[in-house]
C-alpha cells in the first residue's frame, strides 16, 4: 500500500474496462468477471442450500425470511401481471434478483489482482448483463410465440399503424440491450466512484474513509434497486409479450 501512495499524490490512473484475462483455445476470457460471478453464484447457492436445510413452516429464520420476502414479492408481481398460468416465471425473476444482488454486492469485498481496493462487480462487465438480457429476450419472445402462435407473434409487429413495425421490432431488440446496459452502467459507474474516492489524497484523511464508507453504503442501496428493477422489468416484459393485443 505504501508504495501505491506516492503516485496517487501526483496523479490518478483509474483503469476502465480492463480485465485480467485467461486465454483458452485462442479465446480470451475475463478471469476477474468469471471469478466474481462464481463468488456471487456460490453466495446465492450457499444461501439457497442453507435455506433448504433449515426451511420450516413454523417461525422462519433470518435467511428464510429474506428468501420468503423475495419469493413472495416476485410471486405477487407475477400473479398480478400474468396470472397463475405463468408461475414458472417466478424462479426466473427470483434467480435474476438474487444473482444480480449478490453480483452487485461483490464490490463490497476487498480486491484482488490488478485492483486491490475493491473487487469489481461482475455486473460491471457487460458479459454477465448481456447474458441475463439475452436469456430474458429468448424466454419472453418464446412465451409470446407460445401464447400467440408464430403468425400472431409476427402480426403483432404489423398492427395498425403499420409503419410502426420497424420501431416495434427495434424496441423488442433494444429491450435486452437496455436491460443489460442499465445494470452495467450503474455498477460500472459505482465502481469508478469508489476508485475516485479512494484516489483522494491521503492528507484529506479521514474524508477519504468517510466518503468511501458512505458511498459503499449508497452503492449497496443501488445494488438492491438495480436487482429489483431487472427482476421487475423481466416480469413486465413477460407481461407485454403474452398480452393478447399489442402492448
Amino acid at each position, binding site marked *: 500500500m505504501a508504495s501505491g501512495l506516492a503516485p496517487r499524490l501526483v496523479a490518478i490512473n483509474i*483503469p*476502465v*474496462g*480492463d*480485465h*485480467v*484475462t*485467461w*486465454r483458452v483455445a485462442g*479465446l*480470451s*476470457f*475475463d*478471469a476477474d*468477471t*468469471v471469478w466474481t*460471478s*462464481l463468488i456471487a*453464484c456460490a453466495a*446465492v*447457492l450457499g444461501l*439457497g*442450500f442453507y*435455506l*433448504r436445510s433449515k*426451511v*420450516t*413452516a413454523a417461525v*422462519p429464520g433470518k435467511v*428464510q425470511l429474506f*428468501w*420468503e420476502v423475495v*419469493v*413472495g414479492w416476485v*410471486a405477487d408481481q407475477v400473479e398480478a401481471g400474468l396470472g397463475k398460468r405463468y408461475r414458472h416465471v*417466478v*424462479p*426466473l425473476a*427470483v*434467480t435474476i434478483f*438474487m*444473482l444480480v444482488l449478490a453480483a452487485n454486492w461483490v464490490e463490497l469485498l476487498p480486491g484482488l*489482482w*490488478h485492483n486491490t481496493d475493491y473487487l469489481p462487480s*461482475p455486473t460491471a*462487465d*457487460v*458479459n*454477465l448483463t*448481456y*447474458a*441475463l438480457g*439475452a*436469456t430474458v429476450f429468448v424466454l419472453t419472445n418464446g412465451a409470446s410465440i407460445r401464447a400467440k402462435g408464430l403468425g400472431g407473434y409476427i402480426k403483432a409487429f404489423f398492427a395498425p399503424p403499420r409503419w410502426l413495425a420497424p420501431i416495434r421490432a427495434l424496441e423488442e431488440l433494444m429491450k435486452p440491450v437496455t436491460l443489460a*446496459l442499465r445494470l452495467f452502467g450503474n455498477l*460500472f459507474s459505482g465502481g469508478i466512484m469508489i476508485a475516485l474516492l479512494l484516489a483522494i489524497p491521503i492528507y484529506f484523511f479521514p474524508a477519504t474513509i468517510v466518503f468511501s464508507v458512505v458511498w459503499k453504503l449508497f452503492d449497496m442501496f443501488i445494488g438492491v434497486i438495480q436487482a429489483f428493477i431487472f427482476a421487475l422489468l423481466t416480469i413486465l416484459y413477460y407481461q407485454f409479450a403474452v398480452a393478447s393485443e399489442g402492448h
Partner: protein
Amino acid sequence: MPVASSNFLVPGPTFVVELVIFLVVLWALSKWVLPPVNRVMEARQQTIARSLAEAEEATKRARELEEQHERILEQGRSEARALKDEAARVGEQLRQQLRNQGEEEYERLVTRASSDIEASARRAAEELRAQVAGLVVAVVERVLVEGVSLAGQGQLIERAISEVEAQAAARGPGSSGPVSAGTAAATRAGQ
C-alpha cells in the same frame, strides 16, 4: 496474469461462461431451493387461513353461547316472575278463604248467641209466669184463710209478696221454686 483493455461494451467469450453460470443458478434454485420455500409458504398460508377460520368459528361459538346464556337468563327471569305472580295469587286466595271462614264463624257465633238469649228469655218468662201464678195462689189462700178487710188488704198483699220473694231467694236464682210453690198452693187450694 495478462490485463486486457478493449471496448468494454462489446461482449466476448466470457458471455458464454456467464450465461452458463446464470443458467446453472436458475436450474439449481428452480429444482432444489424454490420448491421447498413455496411449500412452506403455502403451508404457512394454510395454517394462517385455518387459524383465522378457527378463530372465526370460536367467535361465532362464543356469540352463540352468549345468546344462549342470555336466553336462559331471560327464561329464568320470566319463570321467577310467573312464580311471584302465582305466589301473590295463592296468597290472595288464602286471605279470601280465611276471611270467609272468619265471617262464617262470626255468623255462627252470633246465631248461637241469639238463640241462647232467646232461650234464656223464654225460660225467664216461664219462671215469671210460674212466680206470678204462685203469688196469686198464695194471696188467694190467705184471703180464704184469714178473710179480707179493706184495711188489711194492703198488708196481706205486701206479706204475700215478701213470702214469695223469700221463697224465691231461698231457692236461689234460676230455680223453679215459685213454680213448685205455686203448684203446691194450687194443690192445697184444690183440697
